[in-house]
């Protein structure tokens, strides 16, 4: 009896394990892609207690990154001075206008929300210059991005 049992081949079922592992791999791959999309990781954001999450109704937003030297980047595009970004923002503004109904545009709808991710060590002048360009182009709805701070700390 015992001899015959020892001859049986005992194989663990590895298929469920493989399923779980592949799902985990997929999760990490997707997370890595989404996080890197338009955020510059070199920028250290300031802390703010009252910062709130971006409104879920906002579908169109544009992230402008300003590093410690005042250089602005939008995705892969680099703009050394705020003046150089004006043309880019103008194009975006025209695109917003083209895809919005004229009646809604007149009501102030259809414009992208500008999210400024500025390094905590840059000066206010550097941020203000970019905000002024946004204002000139027609973007008045600007959000300053910060790290949500714990009020107790």
């Amino acid at each position: 009896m015992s001899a015959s049992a020892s001859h049986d081949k005992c194989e663990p079922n590895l298929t469920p394990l493989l399923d779980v592992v592949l799902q985990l791999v997929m999760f990490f791959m997707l997370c890595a892609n989404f996080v890197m999309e338009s955020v510059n990781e070199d920028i250290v954001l300031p802390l703010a207690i009252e910062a709130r999450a971006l409104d879920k109704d906002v579908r169109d937003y544009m992230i402008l990154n300003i590093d410690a030297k005042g250089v602005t980047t939008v995705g892969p595009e680099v703009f050394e001075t705020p003046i150089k970004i004006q043309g880019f923002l103008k194009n975006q503004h025209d695109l917003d206008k083209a895809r919005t109904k004229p009646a809604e545009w007149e009501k102030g709808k259809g414009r992208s929300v500008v999210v400024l991710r500025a390094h905590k060590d840059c000066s206010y002048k550097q941020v203000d210059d970019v905000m002024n360009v946004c204002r000139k182009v027609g973007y008045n709805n600007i959000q300053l991005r910060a790290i949500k701070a714990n009020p107790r700390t």
Partner: protein
Amino acid sequence: MSRRSRHHAGAPTEPDMPIVPMLDMSFQLLSFFILTFRPLPSEAQLALALPKETGGAAAVPTMNMDAEEEDVIIQVFAADNGNVVSIKAASKSGDVALGSDTSALFKYLQDKAAAARGGDATKKAPKLKFEIGERLNYQFVIKLLDEGRRAGYDRISPTLLTAGGGGAKK
């Protein structure tokens, strides 16, 4: 022929798919992604309402010029190193020095908001305008805006301190 018949006659053979090498590779991929995964801290926003561009930078309201009477205007003077030199509340009745610490500013803003509401909690707080020296460190700018929000102001607009500001002079 005899082989074929024997094959048909016997028990069906199960295809043997080696899972172990695939599992090895999956574990390697998984360990790579776990090691390189860095979750970003939770980012959030401070919303601003910038004045519309009508006539260039001059259109940005400055102290006691074309600002509404009930607007609260705070001037922040910056040193060359980006720190705050002094904070001043500007009003028609006179300027109020608030030192260089934000705790006095927070108390002042709270009092002003409460006075403007006059006990009516549904009433909106007045507009809050910060006139900020150009060299002020951005971290401190965010701190100012944060204090404004905490004090109950929804409409906050920062502008550059133009004349007489310590940070504006080189």
